[in-house]
């Protein structure tokens, strides 16, 4: 049976992991290769790297980092942050990424997603949707949740899926950082609307939250950053918990 995936997310800037990775036995906490190896050993199903600076000058550093990581861990790697053009996607895939996540650029040029899916295949294209509750619906936001777009997030996710995105990386800007759990109604609404795989993101504080995202939210995969970074739980502990709940995971 197809397993539900557990994906740790690493924020990077200038080719280094930022936002406090605190593995106890790691020598250099900012080293992306060391962090990737650690998650590999714990049994992560994939890794996601998000370049939070994504400045033009740091692109080569990012490509180099991706290549380094891909030489050391043999699992799917998703890389996002600052992807604006087909050439950015091509460069990341050539560097060793298996999937590329597109966020703001998809809002401004939706056709980019269609072209990218046709050229590189649906399975390599992830569209990141940052959604925030506004009145009685969810709206897409850009720039880390600061700029509203007026676009209905569920409709948008469906459009991106129809354009060929293989996955929707769905982050609730309301839940992100709260440790109160994923936005389940949002996750369920998007999962029901799209044919693409849905990765739930934002708000995980406990193992129960992971389970809720998969069962009630109907997500195909769950992404979390801080609970893994700060060693609150290991990937292995998370999977053991989910397996006990009867959720199919790879042990």
């Amino acid at each position: 049976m197809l397993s539900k995936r557990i994906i740790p997310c690493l924020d990077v800037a200038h080719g280094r992991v930022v936002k406090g990775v605190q593995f106890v036995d790691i020598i250099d906490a900012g080293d992306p290769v060391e962090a990737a190896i650690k998650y590999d050993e714990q049994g992560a199903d994939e890794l996601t790297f998000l370049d939070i600076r994504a400045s033009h000058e740091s692109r080569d550093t990012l490509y180099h980092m991706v290549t380094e990581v891909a030489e050391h861990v043999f699992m799917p790697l998703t890389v996002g942050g600052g992807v604006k053009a087909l050439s950015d996607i091509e460069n990341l895939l050539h560097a060793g990424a298996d999937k590329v996540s597109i966020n703001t650029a998809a809002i401004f040029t939706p056709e980019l997603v269609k072209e990218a899916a046709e050229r590189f295949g649906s399975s390599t294209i992830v569209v990141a949707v940052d959604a925030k509750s506004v009145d009685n619906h969810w709206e897409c936001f850009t720039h880390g949740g600061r700029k509203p777009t007026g676009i209905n997030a569920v409709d948008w996710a469906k459009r991106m899926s129809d354009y060929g995105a293989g996955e929707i990386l769905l982050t609730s800007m309301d839940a992100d950082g709260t440790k109160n759990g994923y936005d389940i109604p949002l996750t369920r609404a998007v999962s029901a609307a799209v044919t693409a795989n849905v990765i739930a993101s934002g708000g995980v504080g406990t193992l129960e939250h992971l389970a809720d995202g998969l069962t009630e939210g109907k997500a195909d995969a769950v992404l979390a950053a801080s609970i893994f970074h700060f060693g609150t739980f290991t990937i292995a502990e998370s999977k053991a918990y989910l397996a006990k709940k009867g959720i199919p995971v790879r042990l």
Partner: protein
Amino acid sequence: MKRTGLINYGMGNLHSVAKALEKTGGQVELVSDADALKTYDRIVLPGVGAFRDCATALKETGMDVALKERLAAGTPFLGICLGMQILMDVSYEFGRYPGLGIVSGTVKHFPEDHPERGFKIPHMGWNDVIFSSQRETHPVLAPLAGQQVYYVHSYCCTPVNPEHLLAACSYGDHPFAAAIGHDNVVAVQFHPEKSQRAGLAMLESFQQWKP
């Protein structure tokens, strides 16, 4: 030292396959020149891109003929993902295109009603490798017993001869070929180079395989 030739048909990144083969004991070189193929002790055909583009590229470079020659000569061969599908007679990916016909069968999309029933396409993630209890497990695939591996695909192979089905997998309630082969040919739908320890163990057994 034994050399493994990784066929490069100019479709994308072969970095991770090359690195995984190197890590599991191989001396790996990318091969773009069909004439050079005969100098390798093992051949790997990775899967990148669309079926039609791959078939066209192999034909234009003469790699299709060279590969068939080497397979007839007994060179151990591993096909990965599209590198498995291209071995079949015909694929229905965006039309109808002939494959290499090395393993008889067809390549078809998952059933159209899959998304409607809640099974997302592409089939993406970790799933099983199921072996028949009726026959001996293929030596290259033996390390995968009880393991899950990483799949990413929307199309799957159906070999004509059931003997050519080396392992199966099921997505939703749709069974499909996880691995096929005969003689010195073995090919897998999943990505061993992305399947962590289990995948690396399989690549290692391929590089030690004496068909």
